């Protein structure tokens, strides 16, 4: 094979095909077995009563029973899901916008720039579910008590709903900041790819800084905002501030109700996540192509 290693045209394509799949094969097998198949099998399971017997797993079809139990009969699941949705709708935009502002601040020529960046990235490394649980549980994250601030009661009298949103935002403000680590780095990376001469050109043409921010910075940053949003949605789900995950885990351990109910939980939850991702995509996609604006790194 090595004798004819360098080929062109059809031969190269076939060689690439074989070698590509050769290197890909461990991941491909794992993906099919541990991700692709489970994705559909969980859906199938959610319509069954699943029991672990001496002979193996026993499935009895029960229709929509599990879904009805999850949404209507279980008094904890729906409220937990709703509170997660509300929290995510406040947290995700909050995290992405704050990360963007911090990235703009850090993108200047400041002293101690890398020091600040080091602090902002720290939670990515040290934060685990149990650390978060301990910090929140002992009140170490309570930097302020929002409901004791005068303005808050004013807002509450005006609109309890807005007050609720403000409360969610600032109740665990530190936790919210701790999710910005990776988005900040992505945003800084994106901001640095914008050609500075574009700003100078727009300035000569009489654009105000405000205009050049919206016309140059925002379109370039939109794809990164989308990626950061997706990342944040995924990350938020995995921490104890999300009550749904722990409910699913309990359902997995609960042998009486079985894995069928856990599957129904998991699928309803995934549907919610999929809707959020769809919403983020609709809001943040770029309608027009902005390719010439970005100065791509040259590749060898």
């Amino acid at each position, binding site marked *: 094979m*090595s004798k004819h*290693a*360098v080929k062109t045209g059809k031969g190269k394509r076939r060689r690439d095909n074989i*070698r*590509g799949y*050769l290197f*890909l094969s*461990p*991941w*491909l097998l*794992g*993906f099919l077995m541990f991700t692709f198949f*489970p*994705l559909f099998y*969980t859906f199938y399971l959610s319509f069954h009563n699943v029991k*672990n017997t001496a002979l*193996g*797993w026993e499935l009895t079809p029960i229709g929509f029973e599990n879904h009805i139990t999850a949404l209507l009969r279980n008094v904890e699941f729906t409220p937990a899901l709703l509170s997660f949705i509300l929290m995510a709708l406040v947290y995700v935009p909050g995290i992405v916008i704050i990360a963007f502002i*911090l990235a703009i*601040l*850090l993108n*200047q020529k*400041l002293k101690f720039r890398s020091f600040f960046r*080091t*602090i*902002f*990235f*720290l939670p990515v*490394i*040290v934060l*685990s*579910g*149990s650390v978060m*649980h*301990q*910090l929140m549980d*002992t009140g*170490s994250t309570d930097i302020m008590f929002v409901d004791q601030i005068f303005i808050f009661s004013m807002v509450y009298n005006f609109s309890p709903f807005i007050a609720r949103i403000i409360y969610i935002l600032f109740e665990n403000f*530190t936790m919210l900041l*701790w999710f910005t680590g*990776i988005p900040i*780095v*992505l945003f*800084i*990376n994106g901001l640095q790819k914008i050609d500075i001469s574009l700003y100078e050109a727009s*300035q000569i043409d009489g654009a105000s800084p*405000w205009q050049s921010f919206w016309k140059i910075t925002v379109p370039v940053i939109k794809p990164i905002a989308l990626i950061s949003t*997706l990342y944040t949605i*995924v990350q938020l789900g*995995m921490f104890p501030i999300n009550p749904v*995950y722990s409910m699913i*885990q309990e359902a997995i351990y609960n042998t009486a109700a079985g*894995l069928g109910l*856990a*599957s129904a*939980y998991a699928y309803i939850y*995934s549907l919610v996540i999929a809707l959020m*991702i769809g919403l983020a995509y609709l809001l943040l996609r770029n309608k027009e192509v902005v390719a010439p604006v970005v100065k791509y790194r040259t*590749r*060898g």
Partner: protein
Amino acid sequence: MEVSVLNKAKKIKQPLSKKMILHKIRYRIFGYNILSGLASRIVSYVLLISISYVFLFPLLKMLSTSTMSPNDIINPEVDWIPEKLSFSNFITAYHVLQMPQTLFNSIWYSGVLAAFQTIVSALTGFAFARYEFRLKKFWFSMVLLSFIIPLPVVLIPRIMIFVSVQSSTGIQLIGTIIPQLVMAMFGQGVNSAILILIFYNFFRLIPPALDEAAHIDGASAFQVFWHIIVKLSIPSIVTVFLFAFVWNWNETYTTGTFLRGAIKLLPIQLSVFENVFANLAPAIPGQEGANRVNEAYRMAATLISMLPLLITYVFAQRQFIEGIENTGFKE
């Protein structure tokens, strides 16, 4: 000679008109751009410092609480600085966490998983970076999809697979590292998609001419991968390994489900700290301070469990941040 004359000529100050001086002051303070003036610079520093404070607040609080004696914790006048530094909390927490053993467990557990994840991610990243194979775009989008899918959806069948294998072969799998090891070996570990992306972007920076030359000299595809790509990518291999290590360390959801406490790991031991503590410490009924005293122990335990990662971060922060920069996340 001429140059120095020119320089001198430049240095002679020209008298500025009043308008120009005003303009210059305005420029110094506000700048031409939103972000280039002195005023915005001060605002930036104030914002960054205050946000850093909020970022570090829980950690500072943890540090202060963990060194408090029981009296300091109950005393409402003691807010940040304990009256007397007490390190006995750490000794208690150390014992409740069953420390040297859990630390070693966590290190080898995360280390083994991270090593396998690094190898498979490198192979996968190489396939995507170098070869044009059929359905490449589809599989690449599947890598990204595997990152978005919520964990519980895939976790339930994964458990069923391993429980079935365990009961049909009689080999103990649940409560050992094997299930997670198998998933790591096949590229389905924690955040594998990000690791693959880091390698993918890094390998694309290596000129293909290098492997073409090696191919002409008769090297096989695997030799090219090993002798050229791997040797040139040591920095990114280190980065990926560190990330995989930290993520496996911090992961408690899958780990908790498969291990069920059979191997005691540091983060899992921390999450059940209160229960273990309650079992070990003699219950003292009717004592009001009892629950509050617990806080100092819990913060000491949290600090202990964080310490290995903090040390790693201090030495490898550049690798971590640059690693995320290299994911690039390009469509």
